């Protein structure tokens, strides 16, 4: 049986002595979520003659963007300003964001969200027909656009359906990329496996954009879908591109125990309370302001995610959390919001609680605990999405521009996919337009890759380790060493254990040796990617001897701007080892200051250096 795809561009590019098949495109997207699809459309609009293809290991509408709930931030109302959105983002990120990226982002986010509207996204509306916005954590103004609490779902389906009308965009649905093909610092394409047939094929391209999303599955307890194994990060790292700020992992404060299903921050933005086991709104003890009946922006439950997740750990140490078979929990209380509001603004929250937790938030408390949610770090790019490797771009969660610094604000990630998807799509299209036809100098590498896949997995004899065993040990190790709070000894031990797991990974054995839809081979390759990502996280965390945003060191509890107002860049050496370098943070108008939440929040005008133009 043959998989459908629109594959006019496929050519059988067999060269003498080369067994791999090859196809060729101008711009190749790896990943079909919000960033990938937005980039594909942008590339098609820059130059309609370009031949663009989207490779994805799942059908694009299955991509993890689909799970995003709460909303997408972009200044929309007269009482708001781009500077305020920028200041919230910079202070939320504990001054590690590059401010040129932040300024570009806040300026373009409203245009991108409006573009989604014109493509049909069913945004919630005001009675007069204008797009409605809601509050979100760490944001001083209401600027979060939303489609009930299924914002990511609606954005993804709108984007996917819109791509169907663009003739130049073809797709490789359910193809798994195993390697980037690089020659002399220039990217020329990828090797990928067609899952349905098991065929290993080279896909050549003048420009490649990584849009593979995050890597939450490196941890045992995550909101991330099963497909979030950091593929793009590992592909880029192995190809020689640096990973930036990998020590910054976001824990979302409200995940359902056992499943890790996310209860959106919108639940707190609509007025939900966080309660400890005594029914006390404990956030008031953590420098986040005083409890009010109604939600107050940048206060209490609407503080930033890093601070809320850290507060949970302190409550646990004080014995003020509730024990459950799936670890300690606190409670999210929505009961006072009433059934009508919950149904109108948070229907998915109610559905998820009823279906997966067997409770009704209209009448009952929701048990929640911090859960790994988002990777601030990723493949290092400039503000056009370009990586240091010529022809390689990255956008969305896989990338680190850095917009999000040491802690991302809720509802900045969806517009990040759009703004930097658009920017990288344009940049890649312009680059590809200036290049000669993709050349096949890398075909020998592709043969090596095909041989590796066969000898290390499909045709391998012996092997004693099970994938699930190594995966579970890796997840436990990363959580124990690089969780919400870290310190030298556990990081060192964690790194050592991950190196051991890397060794044991070489000894895995597959039950499944067939070519047709071999999901066990896919899991094995994903595990290989995750081990590299886990190692880079722990190594980066060990070297940053300060506390900033989501990276909290109990042995170095203060922020150290003198030494670490800098991005960490992790490179892979030729011998497979890694080295960390640092690059300065771009500061344009907001010099490093104190992160203040609660009623005394400073106005950005008080701290910003006025633009001189």
């Amino acid at each position: 049986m043959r998989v459908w795809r629109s594959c006019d561009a496929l050519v059988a590019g067999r060269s003498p002595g080369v067994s791999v098949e090859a196809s060729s495109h101008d711009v190749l997207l790896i990943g079909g979520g919000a960033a990938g699809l937005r980039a594909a459309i942008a590339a098609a609009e820059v130059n309609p003659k370009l031949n663009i293809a989207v490779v994805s290991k799942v059908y694009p509408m299955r991509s993890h963007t689909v799970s995003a709930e709460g909303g997408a931030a972009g200044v929309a109302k007269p009482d708001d300003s781009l500077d305020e959105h920028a200041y919230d983002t910079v202070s939320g990120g504990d001054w590690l964001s590059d401010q040129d990226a932040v300024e570009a982002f806040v300026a373009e986010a409203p245009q991108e969200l409006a573009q989604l509207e014109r493509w049909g996204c069913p945004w919630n509306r005001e009675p007069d027909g204008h797009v409605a916005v809601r509050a979100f954590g760490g944001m001083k103004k209401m600027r979060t656009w939303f489609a009930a609490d299924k914002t990511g779902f609606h954005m993804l389906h709108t984007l996917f359906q819109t791509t169907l009308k663009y003739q130049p965009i073809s797709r490789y649905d359910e193809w798994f990329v195993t390697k980037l093909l690089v020659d002399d610092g220039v990217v020329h394409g990828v090797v990928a496996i067609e899952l349905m047939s098991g065929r290993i094929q080279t896909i050549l391209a003048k420009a490649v954009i990584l849009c593979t999303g995050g890597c939450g599955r490196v941890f045992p307890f995550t909101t991330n879908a099963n497909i979030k194994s950091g593929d793009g990060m590992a592909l880029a790292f192995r190809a020689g591109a640096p990973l930036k700020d990998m020590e910054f992992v976001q824990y979302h404060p409200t995940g359902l125990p056992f499943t890790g299903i996310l209860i959106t921050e919108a639940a707190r933005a609509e007025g939900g309370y966080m309660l400890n086991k005594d029914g006390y709104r404990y956030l008031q003890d953590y420098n986040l302001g005083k409890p009010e009946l109604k939600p107050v922006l940048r206060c209490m439950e609407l503080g930033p995610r890093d601070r809320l997740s850290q507060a949970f750990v302190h409550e646990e140490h004080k014995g003020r959390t509730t024990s459950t078979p799936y670890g300690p929990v606190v409670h999210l209380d929505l009961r006072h919001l009433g059934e009508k509001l919950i149904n109108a603004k948070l229907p998915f929250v109610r559905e998820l609680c009823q279906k997966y937790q067997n409770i009704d938030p209209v009448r009952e408390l929701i048990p929640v605990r911090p859960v790994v949610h988002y990777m601030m770090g990723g493949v290092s790019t400039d503000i056009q999405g370009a990586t240091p490797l010529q022809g390689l771009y990255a956008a969305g969660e896989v990338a680190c521009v850095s917009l999000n610094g040491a802690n991302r604000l809720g509802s900045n990630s969806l517009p990040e996919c759009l703004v930097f998807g658009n920017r990288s799509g344009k940049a890649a299209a312009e680059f590809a337009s200036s290049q000669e036809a993709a050349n096949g100098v890398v075909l020998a590498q592709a043969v090596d890759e095909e041989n590796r896949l066969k000898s290390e997995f499909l045709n391998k004899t012996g092997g004693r380790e099970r994938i699930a065993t190594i995966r579970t040990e890796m997840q436990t190790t990363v959580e124990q060493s690089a969780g919400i709070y870290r310190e030298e000894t556990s990081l060192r031990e964690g790194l050592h254990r991950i190196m051991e797991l890397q060794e044991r990974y070489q000894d895995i054995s597959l039950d499944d040796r067939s070519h047709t839809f071999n999901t066990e081979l896919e899991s094995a390759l994903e595990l290989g990617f995750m081990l590299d990502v886990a190692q880079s996280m722990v190594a980066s965390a060990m070297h940053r001897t300060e506390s900033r945003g989501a990276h909290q060191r109990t042995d170095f509890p203060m922020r150290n701007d003198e030494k670490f107002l800098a991005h960490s860049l992790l490179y892979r050496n030729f011998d497979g080892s890694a080295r960390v370098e640092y690059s300065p943070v771009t500061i344009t108008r907001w010099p490093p200051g104190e992160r203040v939440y609660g009623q005394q929040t400073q106005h950005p005008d008080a701290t910003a250096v006025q633009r001189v133009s």
Partner: protein
Amino acid sequence: MADKIVMEIARYSPESDHEPHFESYEVPVKREWVVLDALNHIKDNVDGSLTYRWSCRMGICGSCGMMVNGEPKLTCATFLSSYARNGNKIRVEPLRYFPVIRDLVTEIGGFMEKLKKAKPWLMRATNDQLSEGTYLQTPEQLDRYKQFSMCINCTLCYAACPVVGLDPVFIGPAALALAQRYNMDSRDQGAAERTATLAHPDGVWGCTFVGECTRVCPKHVDPAGAIQQYKIAAVIDWLKSFVTPRGRDAGSLAGND
């Protein structure tokens, strides 16, 4: 609730089998476990070759639809415990009416083509493109199509639809609901173009209104309702074609005279 249950799982590999067969696995029943957790338990610990799709585990990506005891279900949203009474078994098969690639994985390329036939994108008259800013749409206008926009493309409705079973060319419930999602959107002006492709025997008229699609939909999209609306609209258009010559409305006739 029994503490263990036997799962009978359809297995098929085109490389070794002429036709599917069932294999049985005994799995623990935990209160929080859904059918998908049991499949993962088997794959991780017993047989790594068991093949199925899954991703989000929260009922929104649409990957993990299967037949569970003969009913199309999202396996991430179907609790094991609801089947685990003494002596019961759970039978898991790939979604009905689709070609099977392997084990529980169906071939949905044809479904993807059908979605595209619905022309599921916002269409405007060419001279009416907003270059920036947004269209206005009241909450009431949003409510008219919102339900039809909730489809996660899980294809459960195709596995439930007897017409799909008899006629694989029938465009089917999800694609028709998606067409109606745009037709009912106050911002869209493409209904006539969609009707041209969908108002024929493989399109909306293929539906015999059994209503199974709506019954099995995990997202309450109500494809059957969408199809009924579509039929009514198509009939009105057809009747209008007798009253008004095609391509000319009453105003232009008056102007010509």
